[in-house]
């Protein structure tokens, strides 16, 4: 079964070759399709970027909860956020009561 974990050992270029086949795409369940898309999107990301992105997607959007959710230091989180912002996957939104993060695109 295709999962995010199993696809960690496949080169995204190889996976891209398979995804160009309609038979392969048609055979995927929604969960597998999400896993494939996640792999294609995040293959060149660092582990920190993936952890921060996953945490933001799950709803951990403030700097108080992210270190707990990801297990990373504040500096690592800041660095990952900057890179993700540069790629356009995370956007920092200033709200009156604080700063929250939102993802600009959903998988």
């Amino acid at each position, binding site marked *: *079964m*295709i*999962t995010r*974990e*199993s*696809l*960690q*050992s*496949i*080169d*995204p*270029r*190889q996976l891209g*070759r*398979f995804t160009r*086949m309609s*038979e*392969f795409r048609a*055979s995927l369940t929604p969960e597998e399709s999400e896993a494939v898309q996640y792999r294609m999107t995040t*293959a*060149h*990301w*660092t*582990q920190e970027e993936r952890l921060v992105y996953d945490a933001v997607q799950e709803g951990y959007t403030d700097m108080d909860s992210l270190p707990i959710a990801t297990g990373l230091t504040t500096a690592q989180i800041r660095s990952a956020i900057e890179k993700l912002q540069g790629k356009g996957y995370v956007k920092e939104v200033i709200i009156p009561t604080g700063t929250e993060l939102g993802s600009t695109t959903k998988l």
Partner: protein
Amino acid sequence: MLRKLLFLLVLSLVLLLSFSTPVYAIGNPTSITIESVRIFQNLWVDGDQLYVVQFKVMYDPVPEERSGDTFLIGITPTTPMISKPLDYYLHNFTSIYLTPTQAIGWKGSYSIKVMGNPAYFTTLTEAVNMRTLALSDPYWISGSMADSREYLGAWCIQLAETFSSDAPVGWGIDLLTATGKLNTVGAVKFREAIPGLEGIVPDIFAVAVSYPEYTPEEHPKTYEEYLRTVGGERLETALNNLGTFLHIPGAIVGGLGLAILYFVLAGRIFTATGSVPAAVTVSLPFLFAGNLIGILPLYITFIAGLLVLVMFGVTFVLGRMG
């Protein structure tokens, strides 16, 4: 003085930039291993060799650089080194094919090497950015063409099962059908890794394209050639002597003589019947008699017969239409 210093500074900068060369760099993989190797022989032609190698060149994240630029796989020691660019990073498999001319000594002291490209790695270190596996006896699969193809087919199915397995063993992607044959995804992967595989082991594919074997029909001219020899030496000598006297080849003498007799016969029939088609048609067997005694080539009779048919068609069909 200041102008001289400025001039020297500009000159040194220009020299530095004009002699600078691009430097490629990539980090070392987190791990690099050769998981399995099998070597097959006599697959497409006698004496060829196929090396099927399963490897892991693990990175996280996957480098932006193409794996074909940064890594290669080869056989050592060979001069020059037999190698090819690596198709993919991470867990995958590929093959190296050697024609009978390129083939190395069977079961010789060779190794398979997966290594970084020296253009990208300043130093190559075993187990860091290079892995070498000595080819011991179990890796060499000896056999005739039929046996080797069967072994290769079985090994391909085994590889497909490995990569179809869930993590951490495989990709979790089904490469096989429920009946144990390569599905469309598996077929794409194996055709890519082992070009021409479908032609020699089509049975492992759920859907395979193959061309039927065709043996062209032979149409020997044995009867025609036999008829030319039945004339015998005496008749041939007589015709040749007559030909020498008339300054024409002996074969033409025979043909001319037969033609004269043919037209005499046809004329006699025409006189009796008043019909040209009848005269020509009834006289045809006379030509065949000439074939049987070897003084007239068989194709002359067939050409004459074809002309009679055409004449009959024109006379009979067009005559009816008139």
